[in-house]
């Protein structure tokens, strides 16, 4: 595993309609870190995530993934290195059956036959799903929690070194959310989690980055920032419920 898998220097991005989504982002992520990226709607979280495996290219600044700068010639290797789990699993599960969907990434890597089967089986075990039970299930007939797990399995099957999650707990019921938190805790990969779910952040991440209007306004200990009510309010965030309750 690379010791410093993601390095971002002075990254800026402006959308075609003129909205400055990111402005001078500097960021270093170390191996096996689990880092939360929080911020209000429109703060630039999703835009930042889409830069991490080259879906959006930096307009200004530099992003280095592993040893590779994000350039068109490195995109294949970068997308094998950084796996993104999108917010809505319906966007991600585009193949008709679970097996085909989990196989999509490894097949793009050139895997076939027994190696492919082993890779898919390992990914399904990692997310706690029985391959034999799910292999021929159709994606649209799965529950929200199952879809999320299959989406994660599809990314894990590519064996990335960095996992990026966009709102992983969105649309999940409390039990599925709890299972997801346990799952993320067991995954050994470096993780970046963009979310509004600050209770999840408190449980999973030691380090938190707060984005506000495209800029990093805090990068440090999770417990410290999430207990600072004034700071959170200033950036359109609220304290996690668990900490709010403790103060009542």
């Amino acid at each position, binding site marked *: 595993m690379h010791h410093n898998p993601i390095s971002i220097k002075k990254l800026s991005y402006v959308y075609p309609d003129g909205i400055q989504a990111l402005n001078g982002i500097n960021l270093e992520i170390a191996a096996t870190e689990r880092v939360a990226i929080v911020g209000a709607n429109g703060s630039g979280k999703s835009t930042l995530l*889409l830069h991490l*495996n080259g*879906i959006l290219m930096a307009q200004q600044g530099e992003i280095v993934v592993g040893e590779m700068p994000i350039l068109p010639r490195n995109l*294949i290797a970068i*997308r*094998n290195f950084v*796996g*993104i789990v*999108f917010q*809505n699993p*319906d*966007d*991600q*599960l*585009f*193949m*008709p*059956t679970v097996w*085909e969907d989990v*196989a*999509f*990434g490894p*097949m*793009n*890597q050139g895997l*076939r*036959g027994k190696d492919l089967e082993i890779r898919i089986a390992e990914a399904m075990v990692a997310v706690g799903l029985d391959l034999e039970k799910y292999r*021929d*299930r*159709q*994606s*649209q*007939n799965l529950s929200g929690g199952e879809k999320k797990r299959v989406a994660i399995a*599809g*990314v894990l099957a*590519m064996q990335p070194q960095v996992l990026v999650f966009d709102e992983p707990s969105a649309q999940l019921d409390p039990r599925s959310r709890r299972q997801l938190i346990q799952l993320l805790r067991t995954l050994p990969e470096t993780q970046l989690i963009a979310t509004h779910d600050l209770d999840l952040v408190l449980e999973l991440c030691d380090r938190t980055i707060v984005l506000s209007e495209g800029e990093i306004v805090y990068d440090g200990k999770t417990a410290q920032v999430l207990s600072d009510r004034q700071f959170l309010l200033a950036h359109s965030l609220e304290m996690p419920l668990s900490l709010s309750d403790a103060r009542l």
Partner: protein
Amino acid sequence: MLLHIPLIETRDRPSPQSGDRRNFWANLAVHTRVLCVFLLVFAIALTPIGRWWTWAIYAIATLPIIYGSKVDLRILIKRMAIEFAFISVILLGTLFRNGGQLLWQWGWLQITTNGLTTLASVSIKAFLSLLLLNILTLSTSIPLLLQAMVTLKTPPLLVSILASMYRYIHVLSHEFNAMRRAAQARNFAPKNLYARHRQDHAWQRQVLGNMLGMLFIRTYDRGDRIYQAMLARGYQGVPTVMESKSGGWSDRLALGCVMLIILFGQIFGQLTN
């Protein structure tokens, strides 16, 4: 297509009957089933008008397929009824044509023996073709059909497009229903479009138009997000192709039987014509 959605729910798991060893249809490789059905459909469609005995033979050949496929007859009939309602508009057009003996006339509309023969022939062709295609899609899941198309050397890009269409038609219908529910919750109803006591028909139509427009925009946005998700997992513009199994002796036998039936139907039809 939207009308079809409640009827095309396919099972995730194979039905208990599909494990039955005597079920010859389920034992055939999927691409063999597709080939058998397409050969029969082509033979039915290309048979010249008025060859009743040929179609009778093909109809008899369809019976064991209906039995072997173990399809639910109620669903089969429902599907056929919906599809026939659509194609009957086209079929009616074949009735009013010149030639043969004049049977009925009203202004420029006329029914002749020629028109009746054409209508009956085209109706039989449509009925038998739809019957076979529906049996195929009811007895075989869509993912397996797509896999069979790959085996039959259909271009992978076309199969991928079909797979995406199948995957997302449910999502689209879900989104459309969600929008419709949201509109209904604020007292929008299709009957308002025609209700005589309302003075805002134009606005009601505009709302419906906006909903459909919004559905297209959402579709576009979703397509964009799906493409991003594909890129994120290493998609480089060329769809991947799964390995496929080849058929055994029973598949070759089934294809041979279908060819013989087609040939026999054509010869017998020509002799009796």
